């Protein structure tokens, strides 16, 4: 298209020497503009005028998943996977959103877009962008382990792979979910034997439901903090979860004893928790792999459970895409991309405002 345009202009007008130089320069800029570029608003596809997970208000936004650092308020049009629609409607209120299926291609100004499962949380997608045979994939956040509630991560072949690397250090190596959940249920049993309430912290969208799904309801009752109860109710039509009881002002602390409470990390240390004495606290996050992180968070027990890839699954999934170019968006980006370059990839880092799992530990939830 650009080359045709170039021809037409030059045939129709007799450009001066200076005009020629300027025009060549402009054509060159257009020709070398990447399919996806990083600007101060987000990841931008100029040809289609579409942003992926923008962090400032834009006209058209394709949203990978419902976490606050990826789906922000204020865009004119939202496009996301249909299972994510109820989630972002719940979080963002009245917005103009359309839902698409996995693998369903929609074309905007000759650019083909499609969403593919990212396995991060329910409704989380990777975005595939294709133009003139060139394919880019943006992962958003992802994990390769099948958690049994979100549709498992799918390998999408591409030329350029824009990946998160929240846990892009060889120190991160996850144990299988079944093992971690067994530990969590055993911990609950131990606390119950001592007549204490177990309080388990997990992000209210994603982690909390993953924990809930595999808590053993035969041990006792599962109580929830309001933000988790509300989000779980949004997801109940899509996934079967054990019964939960919302904690209200009327809930007596005696009835909590021996039972488990699911709470967002931000509730830690607050009066809401203090009223539940005697209790034991636990946190489920990838950061719990570090002793220092657990101590800083001052929880009694840390369970290493993450909705992101560990080091090994990051490397495996990058390899599986067949991509030659890799762009790292958030996490240990500098270290990870340096290592990828040593492996022979054309890898670099781009600055974004995504936070990965950071929000689960060092910041309070919105």
């Amino acid at each position, binding site marked *: 298209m650009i080359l045709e345009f170039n021809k037409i202009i030059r045939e129709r007008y007799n450009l001066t020497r200076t005009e020629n130089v300027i025009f060549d320069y402009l054509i060159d800029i257009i020709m070398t503009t990447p399919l996806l570029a990083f600007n101060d608003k987000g990841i931008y596809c100029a040809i289609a005028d579409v942003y992926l997970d923008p962090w400032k208000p834009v006209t058209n936004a394709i949203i990978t998943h419902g976490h606050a650092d990826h789906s922000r308020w204020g865009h004119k049009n939202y496009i996301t996977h249909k299972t994510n629609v109820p989630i972002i409607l719940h979080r963002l209120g009245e917005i103009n959103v359309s839902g698409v299926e996995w693998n369903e291609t929609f074309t905007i100004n000759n650019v083909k877009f499609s969403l593919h499962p990212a396995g991060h949380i329910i409704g989380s997608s990777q975005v595939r962008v294709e133009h003139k045979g060139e394919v880019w994939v943006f992962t958003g956040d992802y994990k390769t382990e099948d958690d049994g509630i979100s549709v498992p991560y799918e390998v999408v072949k591409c030329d350029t792979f824009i990946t998160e690397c929240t846990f892009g*250090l*060889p*120190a*991160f*190596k996850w144990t299988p979910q079944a093992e971690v959940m067994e530990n969590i249920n055993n911990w609950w049993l131990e606390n119950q034997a001592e007549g204490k309430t177990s309080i388990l912290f997990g992000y209210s969208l994603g982690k909390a439901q993953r924990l809930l799904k595999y808590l053993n309801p035969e041990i006792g009752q599962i109580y929830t903090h309001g933000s988790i109860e509300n989000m779980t109710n949004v997801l109940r039509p899509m996934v079967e979860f054990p019964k939960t009881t919302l904690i209200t002002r009327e809930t007596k602390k005696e009835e909590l004893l021996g039972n488990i409470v699911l709470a967002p990390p931000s509730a830690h240390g607050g009066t809401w928790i203090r009223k539940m004495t005697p209790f034991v606290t636990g946190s489920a996050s990838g950061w719990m*792999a*570090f*002793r*220092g*992180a*657990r*101590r*800083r968070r*001052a929880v*009694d*027990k*840390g369970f290493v459970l993450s909705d992101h890839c560990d080091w090994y699954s990051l490397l495996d999934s990058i390899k599986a895409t067949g991509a030659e170019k890799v762009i790292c968006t958030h996490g*240990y980006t500098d*270290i990870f991309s*340096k*290592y990828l370059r*040593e492996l022979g990839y054309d890898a670099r880092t781009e600055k974004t405002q995504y936070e990965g799992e950071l929000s689960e530990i*060092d*910041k309070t939830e919105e």
Partner: protein
Amino acid sequence: MRNFADLIKTLDSTNKTTIKVAALTTYFKQASPEDKVWTIAILSHRRPPRPVNTTLLRLWANELANIPMWLFEESYHIVGDLAETIALIIPTTKEHSDKSLTEYLEEIIALKKKPEEEKKAYLQQNWLALNYYERFVFTKLITGSFRIGVSQKLMTRALSKAEDVDEDVLAYKLMGNWDPNKITFQELILDEKSSDYLSKPYPFYLAYPIEGDVENLGKVEEWSIEHKWDGIRSQTIIREDEIFVWSRGEELVTDKYPEFQAFLGVIPNGTVIDAEILAFSNGEIGTFNDLQKRIGRKTVSAKLLESNPVILKAYDILEWEGRDIRNETYEFRRKLLEQLYEAVKETKIPFSISERATIASWDEVASERMLAREKRSEGLMIKRTNSTYQVGRKKGDWWKWKLEPLVIDAVLTYAMRGSGRRSNLFTDYTFALWQENEAGEKELVTFAKAYSGLTDAEFRKVDDFIKKNTVEKFGPVRSVTPQLVFEIGFEGIAFSKRHKSGVATRFPRILRWRLDKKIADANTIEDLKSMII
């Protein structure tokens, strides 16, 4: 090893003292006597000598992880602990090990003399045979101490519960220079008479900082006032014509202070003195900085003895004529000490006494405290005249009333990742003050490092600032755009040739974040120097 690793895991994963004591008690009840001795040794920081240096340790661990060395180093900076990094990056296998803690420690001790090839094979084989947490504990045994929030006091309490031996008696038994490789549990804990009685110190009695108004302590006549000297708290033992000097950290430091050998034959056998070691030249007490030159040296040259002499300034006497007099009143003990001093003061041995202030009111106590900086002390000690010499830090009878710290406003210029619970956060800061250079321009000159004093929430905010305002990275250190001003407090100050600023400060720490100040408002090096008396 499994039981010990489980114990460390439990201790490490709770902040509750009751849970820690319970876990230790359970462990002591079921562990073998040999493992118990080693556990006590390790938790009281008596680890075997390091058989392998950390450079080799990194190299060999990295070989198993099969990653580039720089990636190992980056991981280490972020994890903040070498043993933990090694444990994390080495793959876990299906193997397991049934060796006991004692077996491991005996192997580690024997390892020191082995050729390098054997060391490497031993470490790699065991790393692969242990699970993640055991691997961490095993590596910690080689690299250093466990910082898991278990004080000697806490361990003693648990041991006392498990063995039904009085806590204070235990504290005494555990002091001093015993070798876990040679002593049995029977000898260390259960036997009535200890084999190395000769050098054995008493547990130190430590004071609490005073709370609230000093007048709340009641009648001033019931208290004895002296200065809190700024040197090394020590215990000097003279028994059977031998002298032993212990530091507060339970380190035997006799060899560092050869001038105290002169006490032999002057101060009678069967005497134990609680005192402060102070720098002392030309009849004047020196600064802690002067003393530092003596602390750092392993061997003391005649030249250093000449240029940096020390003195023992006595506070208290714990043993007299071979009798433990800790249960006598402070007044009684002080009288003995004063008599001793009177008897020996003409002999020119480097021994003096910490004078008691004559005071008639709390107002006079307050005025005396104001003289502390001039007298080169940290403040006052306030001791109840009828108090016994107790064990450890106890409230009620001994109080310290330190001077308010000196303060200065400084600019944050460098930051480093913290370790332990602060790993992965930038919490270790370098601060600078203004100084005019030769061209007459103002520039920031580093004067102190500090890494305590902010709340966790403040640390997170500063960490966030550092990550966004990094100018350059040097390994774990980052230079930061000068923008944040902090109030830095410190206990003492002296000229120093070793420091770029020309000044050394003692115990610098962050008092508060001056959000109201711009970097132009920060103090100058001249302001700092004007504080030196």
